[in-house]
């Protein structure tokens, strides 16, 4: 089975063949730009553009007014002031699938963050921070505790539990306060 997708590269010196495909809109972007870059300075390419347009029209039964019309039109166009109005660059419109992909990514990220983050209790954290700050007030020159969290942990020892066995998940109340505290 012969692959119909196979690309056969024609030598570019066969510019006429490329013009034929260009007229049919059958070149990819790079090829089309390459051929278009030869217009309108390449006289042979321009002539083929005219010829193949005529052949196409003639096959559809339209061949009137070819030579005389173009000569007359060119004379009229010469008298026209040259238009100078470059087209604004087109805004790139993201394809619809990009929006879908972006939404899916957003959902995935949100889910990951939501499930990975530890349970958050804002008020507890705030109270703890205030407690630490309050306990950290000491006279100038006093030695800071070795572990700055110790006062906080000591104050919250009633809430501290340790898992002592698995899988029964038996918890036991422990004390962080040492005998000398």
């Amino acid at each position, binding site marked *: 089975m012969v692959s119909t997708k196979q690309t*056969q590269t024609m030598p570019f010196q066969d510019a006429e063949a490329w013009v034929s495909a260009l007229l*049919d*809109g059958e070149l990819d972007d790079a090829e089309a730009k390459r051929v278009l870059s030869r217009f*309108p300075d390449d006289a042979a390419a321009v*002539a083929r553009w005219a*010829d193949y347009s005529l*052949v196409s029209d*003639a096959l559809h039964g339209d061949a009137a007014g070819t030579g005389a019309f173009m000569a007359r039109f060119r004379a009229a166009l010469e008298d026209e002031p040259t238009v100078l109005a470059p087209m604004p660059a087109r805004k790139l419109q993201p394809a619809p699938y990009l929006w879908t992909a972006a939404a899916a990514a957003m959902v995935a990220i949100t889910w990951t963050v939501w499930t990975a983050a530890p349970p958050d209790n804002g008020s507890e954290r705030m109270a703890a921070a205030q407690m630490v700050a309050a306990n950290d007030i000491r006279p100038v020159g006093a030695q800071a505790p070795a572990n700055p969290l110790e006062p906080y942990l000591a104050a919250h020892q009633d809430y501290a539990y340790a898992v002592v066995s698995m899988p029964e998940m038996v918890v036991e109340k422990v004390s962080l306060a040492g005998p000398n505290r």
Partner: protein
Amino acid sequence: MSEQDIDRQLVERARNGDKRAFDLLVQKYHRRLMRLLSRMVRNQEEVEDIAQETFIKAYRALPQFRGDAAFYTWLYRIGVNTARNYLSSRKRQMPTISDQAMNDDDDVDERIVAQDINTPESMLLSKQVAMAVNEAVEALPEELRTAITLREMEGLSYEEIAEMMVCPIGTVRSRIFRAREAIAAKLRPILGTTGDTRW
């Protein structure tokens, strides 16, 4: 790159001051436009005048062409409006062709067109061209004739033709090119063109 994209590229060049790029668009579309206008105006010389005016108007209006529609669609609207204005100014009645028919130039009864729009000279030329094209197509090797027919008459893409003819797309491209060259060679003596420089 589609035909519409190629037209847009040429429009862009014309808007950058390259009149010859606009000429390529005129080369491509003037016969099609004249066929359209022939359904509204019966006299061939008037058709050519209106076609020229249409293209000049289009050239002046290039800064307003946004590229949202195909170039020919845009040109078509200018052509129809120009013809209507022309007929209105001449206080002539348009032929009784419905707007729907004018909106689809392939559906119009060709007999209306053939009635009396052509001068004897243009009719002779059209006849000669038609005969030359028929002879050229008949003389083509079968694979070239099939390829050009599928493309021009059936409007198939190269890929579709390749599938039907069981050959690579490059072969289709080459066959269509060779068929066009052969037909153009038959037409050049009649139309007095050489196939060489047009500039």
